[in-house]
């Protein structure tokens, strides 16, 4: 679309006002998923498979149904018949199968039945009355084992067209891309390093468990309140899974207690609606933490081989990688994304990448912040670090030498528009952190990271009130302060104070379709639509002013919140403030609103560079992170404080992934650490302050230059920390998490 309205001088954008929902959130007033209730409400609970892989022979619900407090019991038979298709073409089937098991339980924690009862305790007790007969089947949870010839088959026919012949049926999607001639490139190299890397699955770890309140009548009309990153996808999916019309289900997004990609699909929402339809009463379901870990979105685990050739001067002559990702018992592991992102920071003549999407007996993976990218960066940036060390080269200089820039042919195909990788590397080199002395036992690591960012379907409306204030309706749930950014952008265009704009996350009945709050798209896409909607309102404001002054509309322009004559020839009129125009708008032509809807194209890719210092206790293998600096290109920071917050949060999650977080499965295929005690996310005392540097290389695809910032921040940490730990410990760590037992074992192996 034309971006004739580009702007680089700002009044409101770039300031740091209080967020509009701040008061609600510090007083306990904000309503999150589990905070809603309804008259006559029942409580739902879900029975889950204790087996990693089992045929469901029989489910006897009669005792539960007979219980006086139980009002409904549902199994798969209570959902719509959704057609099965291979790969991601059959995503509705995949989601349904995940929401409620069909013929087989596919992982420990897979839902097999659900009850609605008059209290939460009664619902939980009633689950114990449901008798399920299982025929236990062989299972597999490891990605390499799941690809082996003797692996149990999760589901025949799940592979799509992309998978080469002869592969195990658990390999369901295949990706290959690149350019040049890697063999020729390796022949030019002075040093080639080829190594294998492993990352374990981690969970998004949002503190708010999934929760919803659903009501569905026999007339096919429904209401759903839920914590979600995207209520339109919830609406569409629930409607498909229940066999009702999409528009008849109104979905309202609650305040959301963290998502990070994990709340981009549905789990309990269709179940609550199915129970409600059967009981004819509202049903609330709130997951326990253990259910969250066992049955919602972890990220994929990965096994990777990377080979890079470098010349003595640091030029990368060739790079190739094979990335095998396991995403649970369904297609969707982002092996393609891992492959495409892995080498994306570099200007390479010869590059080749292969990605596999592999099924295993684990929960269906969900997106997690730049899905797929962190794993590949870990492998690639570790190898680059090792090459730098062996060739005696500075790791920032080598990255600068090879860095992608405008016009570079990306490893995944197209050429880059204006990008800011070089600027982040230069900022890293200039940052005092990079040259600060290290204490004995400490090591420093750096890494670059890349993420695509996303546009997505977006619809925004803005309505002016007679007193000159504005209400802005956006469709992307606010996960990290986006209402503040939207209000700032609207204020910038309208020229009225930030505080005079009320931003609401509209429900599915009041706006057109909006894609999920994911892909770092909210500030970019909803922001772009907000700007356009505000411009739309400004056009109408100018029309009214022109009519009042009786001059052509072309002779009116908008400046600092006022209509003004566009030049001396237009006439001599005092500026007419917005509130003067809206005051009598009912009498001068009717309400003034602005609207914009589109799928904005031009999200603009994003790069970051992280510097981290780690200290390793050589006697116990325990690591502490002593200093951390995030440098990332934000294009234009609308509310810099929240941009910093995204950088810091991404780094913290990366620290958890690198050091301690992992899904641990037993021989029996059961998840062993489904509570926060043993799934170890970083606590306050684990972390240092996290310094940030916001680089601003404007995105040509946004009127204010915005690039998404939410996801890129988790791409560099795994490798940056691995490089720091490896430098501190004197031994290359190739498996995440780098837990103390792994580090101590590596130290022992290294010493003797």
């Amino acid at each position, binding site marked *: 679309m034309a971006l004739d309205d580009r702007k680089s001088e700002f009044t409101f954008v770039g300031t740091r006002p209080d967020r509009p929902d701040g008061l609600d959130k510090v007083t306990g007033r904000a309503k999150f998923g589990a905070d809603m209730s309804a008259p006559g409400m029942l409580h739902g609970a879900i029975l889950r498979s204790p087996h990693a892989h089992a045929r469901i022979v029989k489910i006897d619900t009669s005792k539960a149904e007979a219980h006086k407090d139980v009002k409904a019991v549902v199994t798969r038979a209570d959902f719509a018949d959704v057609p099965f298709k291979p790969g991601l073409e059959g995503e509705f089937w995949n989601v349904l199968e995940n929401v409620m098991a069909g013929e087989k339980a596919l992982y420990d924690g897979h839902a097999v039945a659900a009850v609605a009862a008059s209290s939460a305790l009664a619902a939980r007790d009633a689950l114990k009355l449901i008798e399920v007969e299982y025929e236990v089947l062989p299972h597999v949870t490891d990605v390499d084992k799941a690809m082996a010839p003797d692996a149990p088959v999760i589901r025949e026919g799940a592979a799509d067209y992309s998978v080469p012949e002869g592969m195990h049926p658990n390999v369901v999607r295949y990706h290959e891309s690149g350019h040049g001639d890697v063999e020729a490139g390796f022949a030019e190299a002075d040093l080639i390093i080829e190594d294998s890397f492993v990352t374990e699955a981690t969970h998004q770890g949002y503190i708010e468990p999934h929760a919803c309140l659903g009501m569905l009548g026999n007339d096919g009309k429904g209401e759903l309140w839920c914590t979600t990153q995207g209520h339109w996808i919830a609406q569409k999916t629930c409607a498909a899974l229940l066999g009702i019309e999409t528009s008849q289900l109104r979905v309202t997004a609650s305040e959301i207690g963290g998502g990070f990609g994990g709340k981009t699909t549905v789990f309990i929402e269709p179940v609550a609606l199915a129970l409600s339809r059967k009981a004819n009463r509202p049903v609330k379901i709130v997951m326990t933490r253990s259910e969250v870990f066992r049955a919602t979105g972890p990220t994929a685990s990965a096994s990777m081989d990377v080979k890079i050739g470098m010349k003595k001067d640091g030029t990368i002559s060739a790079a190739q990688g094979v990335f095998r990702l396991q995403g649970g018992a369904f297609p969707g592991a982002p092996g393609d994304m891992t492959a495409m992102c892995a080498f994306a920071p570099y200007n390479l003549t010869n590059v080749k990448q292969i990605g596999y999407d592999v099924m295993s007996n684990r929960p269906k993976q969900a997106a997690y912040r730049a899905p797929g990218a962190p794993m590949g960066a870990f492998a690639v940036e570790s190898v680059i670090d090792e090459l730098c060390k062996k060739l005696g080269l500075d790791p920032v200089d080598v990255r600068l030498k090879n860095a992608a820039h405008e016009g570079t042919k990306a490893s995944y195909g197209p050429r880059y528009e204006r990008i800011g990788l070089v600027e982040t590397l230069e900022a890293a080199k200039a940052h005092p952190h990079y040259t600060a002395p290290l204490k004995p036992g400490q090591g420093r690591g750096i890494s670059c990271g890349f993420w695509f960012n996303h546009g997505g379907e977006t619809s925004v409306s803005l309505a002016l009130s007679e007193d000159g204030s504005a209400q802005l309706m956006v469709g992307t749930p606010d996960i990290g302060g986006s209402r503040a950014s939207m209000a700032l952008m609207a204020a910038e265009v309208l020229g009225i104070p930030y505080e005079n704009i009320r931003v609401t996350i509209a429900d599915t009945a009041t706006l057109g379709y909006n894609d999920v709050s994911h892909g770092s798209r909210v500030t970019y896409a909803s922001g772009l639509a907000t700007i356009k909607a505000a411009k739309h309102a400004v056009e109408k404001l100018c029309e009214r002013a022109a009519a009042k002054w009786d001059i052509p509309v072309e002779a009116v322009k908008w400046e600092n919140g006022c209509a003004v004559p566009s030049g001396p020839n237009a006439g001599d009129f005092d500026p007419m403030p917005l509130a003067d125009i809206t005051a009598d708008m009912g009498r001068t032509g009717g309400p003034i609103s602005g609207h914009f809807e589109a799928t904005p194209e031009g999200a603009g890719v994003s790069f970051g560079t992280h510097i981290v210092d780690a200290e390793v206790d050589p*006697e116990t293998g325990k690591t502490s992170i002593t200093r951390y600096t995030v440098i990332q290109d934000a294009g234009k920071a609308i509310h810099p404080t929240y941009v910093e917050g995204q950088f810091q949060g991404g780094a913290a999650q990366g620290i958890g992934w690198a050091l301690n977080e992992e899904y641990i499965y037993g021989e029996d295929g059961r998840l062993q650490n489904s509570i*926060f005690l043993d799934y170890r996310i970083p606590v306050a005392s684990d972390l240092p302050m996290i310094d940030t540097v916001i680089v601003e290389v404007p995105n040509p695809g946004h009127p204010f230059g915005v690039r998404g910032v939410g996801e890129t921040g988790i791409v560099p940490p795994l490798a940056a920390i691995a490089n720091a730990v490896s430098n501190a410990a004197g031994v290359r760590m190739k498996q995440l998490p780098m837990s103390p*037992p792994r580090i101590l074992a590596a130290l022992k192996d290294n010493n003797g």
Partner: protein
Amino acid sequence: MNYHSPASFAEASALAANATGITRFLAGGTDVLVQLRSDVVTPDTLIDIKKIDGVHDITRNADGSWTLGVAATGAEMTEHADLGRDWPGLVEAMDLIGSTQVQGRATLTGNLCNGSPAADSVPAMIAAGVTVTVTGPSGDREVAVEDVPTGPGKTSLAKGEVISAINIPARGENGGDAYLRFIPRTEMDIAVVGVAVNLRLDGDIITEARVSLGAVAPTVLLVEDCAKAIIGSALDDAALDALAAAASAACNPIDDKRGTIAFRTEVAGVLAKRAAKIAYARAKGEQA
């Protein structure tokens, strides 16, 4: 589930003796409630002992020994300056359990009765020579802490028996204790290895020592060989190496989600040395 809040230990004991099914006593509840809510253990009878007089008291007796009420929380222990001066290792061990919030509820008694081999306060209590008073249908008896746990989740307490007091010996002269544990994070984890050392000096020479290891066997261990390795020494490098070797040799751990056999065995020795140095410095009256 039936909930009771008796006014005396005799009443508590009688309730437990006459109860059918599963009985649990509720002190801080930081383990009992977790098990209840996750359906691991749903007691038929829950006996809340916090309404019994004196259960929060921390008392220094005339002979310098201490008596703690069974509901004295970790936070109350940490806030008690004199207790911390006498038994810093024991107080620190208790303080390591869980968050600030958990400290507001968790008790030594609960940590002991939960029967976890990884309980942080238990090695420290054993090293310190702590005993518990047990009230039962036939009256009171005094039991050494090391004799209470019999296996993971199991204790030697009989039906109807309830711990009614914690007895900590007098610190005495030239003594010091310390507890260290290994966890992957800085807080909020269960010990992968725990080591408590309590010793007494005559000049520079260790004359008495008790060393206890947690999370390296089905129950918390009191390791004679560790004590022997340092008694008679001034904690020189040879004694420390012998201590580490004895600690590692005593380990009989498992591989689990929290650590490997090799890791636990190795780190038990490392922590034993570090804890012994702290206890030694404390016994000498130095800051540690």
